């Protein structure tokens, strides 16, 4: 599903900052992977490159057979629309759109017919347990519910790769646990490849594999016994 080869990412400013210093990584289809590391280790940068939100300074980022580093801006947009979906720590829901409209947004961008959008939205809202909240605005929901809306929005396109940036970072323990359970269910039932950046050891333990980053390099890559269970 994902293959990164000698990926380097530097940021030019008053002084050059190296966020990723030669990452080599392969993630297979259907894996659920946690990426951990201290602040500034390059976790979010890595996730952005995997999702085509950013391009590496050098190296290859192969996702579902496409080298994102060589894709145009438009090509990467179309890739994000169909092959990958995101969950953010701050949810990034449109505050003025109702829950159902937020979930429907990527389908509208892709030009999916209205009838199909309604059907798919209803289905994923049921899947995340929010069918009763479809007419609400994000401001009227709890943090856990907002993250579930974000998950529903990620699921609605049926993308094979789900990237989650600190999905439980803004939630209390009980709500965090709910979200982890939901992700595990999605992984199990849909076979979606999930890559999750987290600071939280408990969240990381829910994954099959743990990749540790430090100073832009892979410090450790291990399979976790009992992960995802």
């Amino acid at each position: 599903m994902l293959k990164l080869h000698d990926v380097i990412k530097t940021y030019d400013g008053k002084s050059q900052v190296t966020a990723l210093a030669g990452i080599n990584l392969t993630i297979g289809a259907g894996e659920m992977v946690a990426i951990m590391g201290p602040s500034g280790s390059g976790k979010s940068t890595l996730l952005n490159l995997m999702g085509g939100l950013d391009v590496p300074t050098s190296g290859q980022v192969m996702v579902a057979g496409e080298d994102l580093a060589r894709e145009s801006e438009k090509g990467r947009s179309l890739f994000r629309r169909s092959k990958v979906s995101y969950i953010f720590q701050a949810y990034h829901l449109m505050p003025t759109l109702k829950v159902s409209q937020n979930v429907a947004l990527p389908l509208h961008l892709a030009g999916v017919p209205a009838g199909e959008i309604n059907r798919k939205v209803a289905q994923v809202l049921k899947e995340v347990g929010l069918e009763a909240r479809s007419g609400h605005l994000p401001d009227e929901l709890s943090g856990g519910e907002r993250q579930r809306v974000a998950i529903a929005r990620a699921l609605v396109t049926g993308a094979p790769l789900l990237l989650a940036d600190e999905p439980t970072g803004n939630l209390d323990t009980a709500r965090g646990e709910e979200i982890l359970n939901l992700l595990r269910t999605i992984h199990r039932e849909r076979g979606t490849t999930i890559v999750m950046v987290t600071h939280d050891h408990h969240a990381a333990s829910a994954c099959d594999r743990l990749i540790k980053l430090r100073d832009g390099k892979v410090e450790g890559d291990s399979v976790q016994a009992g992960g995802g269970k």
Partner: protein
Amino acid sequence: MKFLLRTLSLSYVRRHMAKTLLTLLGVVVGVATFSAIRSAQGTLVQGIRSTVDRIAGKAQLQITMVGGVPEEVQERIRELPGIRATSPVIEQIVVPEKGELGSLLVIGIDLLGDREMRDYGFDGQDADLDDPLLFLAQPDSALFTREFADRAGLKIGEAIAVRAPKGVKRVTARGLLSPKGFSEAFGGNLMVVDVYAAQELFGRGRRFDRLDVRLDQGTSIAQGIATLEQALGPAYRVETPSRRGEQMERIVANFVSGFNISSGFALSIGTFLIFNAFNVAVNRRRRDIGTLRALGATPRQVQFLFLAEGLLIGIAGGIVGCLTGTMLSQGFLRMMGQTTETVYGVTSSGTVHLPPGIALESMALGILASLVGAWGPALTASRIPPTEALAKGAFQARLPTRVAPRIAAGCVALGCAILLAMYPPLGGNQLILSVLLLGGTGLVLLVGPLSRMLLQLFIPLAARFAPVSGRLSSDALLGSPRRTSGTVMAMAFSLTFVLGFGGYMGSTKATMTRWMDDALTCDLFVRASANFSRPDFLFPGALRDELLKVPGVRTVESYRGVHPLFRGQPILVGSIEVGPTMDRTKFEYLQGNPEAMRRGVTREGMCTVSENFSRKYNLGVGQQVELVTPSGVVRIPIAAVLRDYSSDQGMVLIDRTLFLRLWKDDRIDIFDVSITHGADAGQVRNAIRAQLAGKYPALVSTRKEFTAEINKAIDAFYALTRVTVFLALLVAFLGIVTSLLISVAERTREIGILKALGALRSQIGRSIVLEALALALTGLILAIPAGNLFAAFMEGAIAEFFTGWRMPHHYPWEILGQLLIALPLVSAFAAWIPARQAGRMKITEAIEYE
């Protein structure tokens, strides 16, 4: 896209309704000004054309001559081959004593012989006039349209008072015209009188304004023209009514086209408001943009979303602007009509309707302005990398980092504009458009970097006077370079416009005043008509001797002006006793000298020409002016070129003796009276009034009163310009309000933190007022040189195009002074709402603001 517009865009509009309305107002002001001016202009021109057509009736040709067509000409042409009928006409505009009824167009015709020419369609039970002979026998007889009679509450047999040249005159309605054809001319405000009564009433002597001609069936227009021209000679103009209408339109169109520049400015300032508002919207909505991009929106989809919003604002602004413009247009028409009547003696009346063509044109301009304003921010939005858009913390769409090429390009554009204005290879509208486009582009490119430099100078100054508020306002201004430069740009543009126009108006006025001081040197002016270009009445030449007998009168010079065509364009030929006039007048010579003028004009049959005539027709001393006169074509050598502001059409001045010889017409427009030493001008004026009372219409004014009247006419000429200057200031004010409201919204968290740290409301309020002052003053500093250049261009190339005169450069110090007082007040007022909003912010909500 529809979903995004319906949901994201609409909700943004709902949440920021006040800001959206302010943005919309930018387009509305521009479109309303444009559509109102264009539709009023269209109605004015259409009204003139329609009046000419309707009054012409079945006439196929019209014969005119400078100074009027002598009565005997009708006899001369009646028997010519191909001529079916001829009919004399006199036209004059008068005002009823009840001014609210509007001006009346008086048509003097030969009622018995005119049926061949016009269909009168008498109204009411009578199929015709009861007794045409009674109509002719009673000199106070008149016909009115049914519509006018209803409005005036006038019935057959009743009288109405009108202001005629010889004083208020009561005319009696002897018949009413049904509202069709002829009677619809001049919006139905028509009064028909006997042509011979009109001659007496309006001092036409034994002349008509024109002869209408109907040709025999089978005689072509060309044949008719050839026959009449051969019979009458070159002094007479034979043309179709539509051609005559076109000439009148051209005269008026030249005047009104100047207003298109003003509406163009209003629209371009509206564009900057939209640019500013969209820039801010991009900044505020960058999280939304980031999320959309993360969900797979392509850069083009993001760009289209903002452009679609621009399009909708353009459409909405266009519709509201057209409606507002329709409401304003009637007032514009009245102002334009009054001015064209005063200055050119041509006008029309009617109700302004917004024609679909102008509505579409205005809408298209509103949409274009909106899309142009939204284009840059939309492009910026589409180019924001998703990772940057989703990043936390303050964000500004990045300015292009390459400032040097931008400054260089701006200097080149501005330099080209200056060169083009100084050495124009083009003329007219093309020149104006090219210079304004290049100059505008130069200003757009330079304002950003220059305003930043100026604001950086402002920081230490502000911090010195107000350590906390000054620092805060500087940070806010420099932290949002796009918003700041957008607002400064709108300010600089509108102030450039105000200073440029102000300079031009000031220069015109100062020049005219100086010229009037030098040229209008006699003590009293005796006129028969208040209208300078189309006299209502002319005095007989013999009146001069009568005036000379009035106690206290020393000398009297007789001025007469006619408007013949020269190279197809109307010009003014003025005549006066040049010798005595030169004794008391200080002429400014551009070519030639006083001796050559005195000798040439008084003894050798030469002429002088005005500066604008000389420039327009490229003629000077040593060359000749070829004029078509009633005595034939004559070539008059030029003795001198004078600085003269009598007519924007250009003036040729000849001695009265030459005029009498060539035109064979001794009637007079104005007597210039000089009084004896020690006599009292007021007493002499009263004596002249008493002498002429009951015999002639006489407007006797002292020099001061006369120049005040001319100044009033000049003011009327620029009245619409003042309206647009006001609109420009209004738009600038709106720019500051919008910018500061946005600034407060952007700094919500910062303001919350400051309040949490103990900042007082007054400190925060002061920082916002300082921000407004800095924006306004930066705009003004940039506008001072730009306004100077624009004023120079207006006084030079534009003035020459519209009036034929190049005005000396005059910097509008008085307007600058007014702005220096008004701008801080306006800025502080504009800052009041945002400052109050910031002061009322709740700390807990503000620091949570994302």
